[in-house]
């Protein structure tokens, strides 16, 4: 039709409901050609065609596709890396369960004989499994070895560290441990009784808090990713406007028109997921050494664990779904507005 300025659609609006299924159209046998009407493809084959077609279309513009995938990938990589780190920390917090000990910092001036006596009396208690005495000299040499502050420590004129009794309780029950802690803190010569348990509890609380934060971050960044994909698809729709008009004129259904864009979003999402995985592997690689060293200084030989194959697959699938959803939202908003006039 001659393309006049589009007048607003007046009069009756097209009926929306009810929507009976489209009647099967008898194949017209007329027409200018004598070639028989062909077979129709199944729904699956049609989807396959659209999926491959949109993938090829994306690959024909590798730079643009890469950029879109990068944006999506980076948005996803942030919460992913955080989740990875938290997963490792959580594993750690579980492992140190067994290491619930009490540290009794004794008065700095306490005579060595009194220290020994205290240790012996504590060893006799039923709820105590073992007591180890760490003298200030021992503590200093340990500290020098592990901290790397030799030079600074050498400059001190006297050893600032107190003698410490490390007490291993028989039970790891929190209540028992807390009772024991309260009791030993009152003993003569004990300055401070600190349990690893509080540290553990703090770590767990911290990990919980960080988990929540990661979740919030993930939700926000996923929304951002949705927006990015939606915008990319909106531009794609805009650039193919004339094609959409022609397709609608020759009888393309809304679903047919939307399909390539939905698959486009799907592929953007999936490639973004792959990029996010690659980025998190890179982060893992960069962080694993300092992480191992940090934990090594706590006496742990734990290493940073990455994603399992199945959760990696889950990440890509989730990202693809996110891409599809972003495209769907964009298609719902923009595609219907394009009607042949």
């Amino acid at each position, binding site marked *: 039709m001659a393309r006049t300025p589009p007048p607003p659609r007046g009069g009756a609006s097209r009926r929306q409901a009810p929507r009976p299924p489209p009647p099967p159209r008898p194949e017209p046998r007329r027409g200018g050609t004598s070639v028989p009407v062909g077979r129709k*493809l199944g729904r699956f084959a049609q989807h396959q065609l659209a999926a491959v077609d949109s993938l090829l279309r994306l690959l024909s513009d590798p730079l643009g596709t890469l950029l879109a995938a990068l944006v999506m990938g980076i948005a996803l990589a942030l919460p992913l890396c955080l989740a990875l780190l938290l997963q490792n920390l959580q594993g750690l917090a579980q492992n140190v369960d067994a290491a619930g000990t009490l540290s009794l910092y004794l008065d700095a001036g306490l005579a060595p004989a009194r220290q020994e006596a205290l240790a012996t009396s504590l060893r006799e208690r039923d709820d105590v499994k073992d007591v180890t005495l760490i003298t200030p000299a021992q503590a200093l040499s340990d500290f020098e070895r592990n901290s790397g502050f030799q030079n600074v420590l050498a400059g001190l004129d006297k050893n600032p560290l107190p003698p410490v009794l490390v007490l291993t309780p028989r039970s790891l029950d929190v209540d028992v441990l807390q009772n024991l802690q309260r009791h030993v803190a009152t003993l003569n010569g004990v300055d401070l009784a600190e349990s690893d348990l509080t540290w553990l509890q703090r770590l767990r609380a911290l990990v919980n808090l960080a988990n929540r934060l990661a979740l919030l971050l993930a939700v926000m960044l996923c929304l951002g990713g949705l927006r990015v994909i939606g915008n990319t698809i909106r531009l794609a729709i805009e650039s193919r406007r004339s094609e959409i008009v022609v397709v609608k004129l*020759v009888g393309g259904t809304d679903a047919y028109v939307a399909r390539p864009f939905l698959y486009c979003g799907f592929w953007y999402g999936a490639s973004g997921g792959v990029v996010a995985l690659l980025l998190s592997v890179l982060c893992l690689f960069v962080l694993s050494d300092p992480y191992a060293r940090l934990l090594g200084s706590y006496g742990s030989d734990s290493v940073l664990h990455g994603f399992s194959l199945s959760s990696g697959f889950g990440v890509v699938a989730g990202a693809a779904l996110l891409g599809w959803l972003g495209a769907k939202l964009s298609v719902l908003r923009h595609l219907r507005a394009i009607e042949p006039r």
Partner: protein
Amino acid sequence: MIRFDNVSKRYPGGQEALSQVSFQLAAGELAFLTGHSGAGKSTLLKLIMQMELPSSGQLFVNGQNLNKLSRRQLPYYRRAIGVVFQDHQLLFDRSVFDNVALPLAIAGYDPRDAARRVRAALDKVGLLHKEQQNPASLSTGEQQRVGIARAVVNKPALILADEPTGNLDPALSAEIMRLFEQFCGVGVAVLIASHDLSLISRLQHRMLVLDQGRLISGMDGT
């Protein structure tokens, strides 16, 4: 094939593009729709294509009352109509072959079966040897013929053409019209909007004349 019953189209703002138009077009019939610019030719074709909805009156195509057509049925309805545009509306991001194959791809035909029909349609308009070219590299007349091939590839029962010879010289125009005459010879109804009176008056077909939205001649097939 087509029946208009007192169809009027009023655009918001009061402008009446068509008023009380009634006529019928039988299967296998070719008719020209003519009149000055702004007489309502394009509006009439748009109503048949359901790009516009009538303000009043009833419109039947292929026995179907278009007032009762839902949005969901619309694409299936359009598949039975081949349209040729004045600006041919070809897609320059794909070959001639893929342009012609578009209606078949949309209808979900197996690409192998579709290929045979695309070639048959291109053969019909004499462009089989250019199937792999980009339409942008073709002349205006050739592009128009690709548009015709696309309109007929799905074996429509009705072909609409809006100024199909608008940009062509007289020789090419006559050639295009001959193509349309061949289609109506095999039972397809053809409605061609054109203001090229010197050309269409030579072809002995019915003429529907529109004047300021009113059908003033040709409504009864004489």
